[in-house]
């Protein structure tokens, strides 16, 4: 109440807008906090990037010089033999990458289908026990994966799925987080739109496919990126369920091969890691805004 009273008084707003000549006269002393903030943030940002810079410059160093000190941060010559060593026949990096692509693809596709359907139902369809079921689902976000992994491992073993990609695809075909994310979006659709479709005789399925999904692009993109990243980087599940080289995904394979690659040189390890990070970097640069929207949307309203 008080707040609006204060702001509505007209003289305030004119006082608050500094005229151009006033801005020009701002002294260095007044701008000092802004400058300090810039300096702190810049130093911090450089420190954040140094480990990646070290990784990349080491990956381009000749194999004998990977531990050279002081480190050459910016390589003057480019040695790509580390990268060809990564692709040599003794290192199944390509197989790891293909496995990761396969697992990530099916998990992401599965979540897009199951989460958008469930999210739509929880937001827009009326049925008995809807809120109870939704809360029950949300509660599962609190259940740590380590509690369920032992029984899940035993189930997979009985199904004969150990060292099979299905064992790390099936458990992730749906996610409470994804359902939550899309429900929050579908709640924002105007009711008129849904009613209009109903009047035209569209059933729930048609309304979902023809009206709701076409509008959900940004939210589906956010879920795609978040799921892609989580699956691409997953280590715990593959570590437990996969045990032959041919089946391993990238994080598991590179970590397992680290000792072998390092006997060659740290530069080769860094070449492998650089390659594994590359898709994440590319996707992030292309789709950064969707990604951030997805995270912040659940963050604020969560």
């Amino acid at each position, binding site marked *: 109440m*008080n*707040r*609006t009273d204060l*702001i509505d008084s007209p003289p*305030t707003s004119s006082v*608050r807008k500094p005229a151009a000549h006033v801005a020009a006269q701002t002294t260095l002393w007044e701008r000092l*906090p*802004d400058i300090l*903030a*810039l300096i702190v943030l810049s130093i*911090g940002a450089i420190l*954040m990037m140094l*480990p*990646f810079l*070290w990784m990349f410059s*080491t990956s381009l160093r000749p194999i004998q010089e990977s531990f050279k*000190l002081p*480190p050459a941060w910016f390589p003057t010559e480019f040695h790509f033999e580390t990268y060809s060593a990564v692709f040599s026949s003794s290192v199944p990096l390509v197989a790891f990458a293909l496995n990761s692509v396969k697992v990530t693809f099916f998990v992401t596709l599965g979540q897009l*289908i*199951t*989460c958008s359907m*469930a999210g*739509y*139902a*929880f937001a827009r*369809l*009326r*049925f008995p026990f809807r809120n109870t*079921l939704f809360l029950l*689902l949300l509660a*599962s976000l*609190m*259940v*740590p994966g*380590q*509690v*369920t992994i*032992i*029984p*899940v491992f*035993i189930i997979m073993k009985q199904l004969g799925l150990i060292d099979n990609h299905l064992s790390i695809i099936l*458990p992730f075909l*749906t996610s409470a987080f994804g*359902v939550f994310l899309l429900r929050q979006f579908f709640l924002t659709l105007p009711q008129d739109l849904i009613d209009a479709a109903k009047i035209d005789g569209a*059933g*729930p399925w048609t309304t979902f496919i023809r009206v709701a999904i076409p509008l959900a692009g940004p939210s589906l993109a956010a879920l795609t990126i978040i799921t892609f990243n989580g699956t691409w*980087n997953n*280590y715990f599940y593959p570590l437990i369920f996969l045990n032959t080289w041919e089946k391993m995904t990238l994080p*598991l394979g*590179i970590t397992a091969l680290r000792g072998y690659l390092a006997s060659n040189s740290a530069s080769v390890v*860094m070449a492998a*890691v650089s390659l594994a*990070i590359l898709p*994440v970097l590319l996707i*992030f640069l292309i789709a*950064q805004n969707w990604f*951030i929207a997805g995270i*912040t949307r659940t*963050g*604020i309203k969560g």
Partner: protein
Amino acid sequence: MAQIQKTASAGWLRKESQREALAGYLFILPTFIGYTALVIGPILAAIGYSLTSYDILSPPEFVGLQNYRDLLTDPRLHKVYLNTIYFTVVAVSLNVGIGLLLAVLINRNMPAFLKYIFRTAYFFPVLVALTYCSIIWQYLYQKDTGIINYYLGLLHVEPIAWLSSPAWVMPSIIAMDVWKNTGFAMLVFLAGLQGISQDYYEAASLDVANRGQLFRYITLPLITPTLFFNMIIYMIGALQVFDSIVVLTQGGPGDASRSLVMYIYENAFQLFHMGYASATAITLFIVIMLLTLVQFRVGQSWVHYE
């Protein structure tokens, strides 16, 4: 005539709402099949296994509460719990604190492209797999060949055994964790800060509030929901710390950096003490649930919802 029409339309409505309810259940069916098979079922099964002695090869043997009694007297379990709590308290505080500081600094007046660059730089490590980050940092932390000791050496600091001395190993793991994860908190805080109406600040500046007061009395109360969200998310994640420790130290030296989840993993999948590992995992579940409930309870007194 009117009567007939009314009944007909009521019948049509009822059929319509039944159809909608049926569709609702069908829509959530795939999710709930997964939920039952992979969350509810396994939780019940884990409780069951925790009451048995089970090595996968021979059938489980009922031992009552023996596993839980063993937990109480297992000195290694106490050690890994202490490590995990230490990690959680320090890593959550630093991740959330630094994330808030960064967000407040970035949220000042500055050109949009600088904001974009800072946001990208601080957030990027969040996206990179923890295993890769750990591999990189393991090299940086090397005692003799690592660049951290090299640059400290230029300042005449004796080489530090970052990953192999019991005193330094946890701070080293936490430092990497903060580098890797604080960008997430920053991003969530930035969204929270940008959601604060400018009106509040204009109103407050009439009372000649200085920057510190503005932050203390306007910004902080208004971002408490975001702060709360971050604390819960980071706490749940930190209590499950695993990947980074496995790659950096394998729990060493001794048990100096072994985490609770590593201990569960080793008991279950290396020693095949499935019953004992299940009992340990159940305690973790209970701890996470209790801490989350406590946070929600305490949160009511300090979280300010508009």
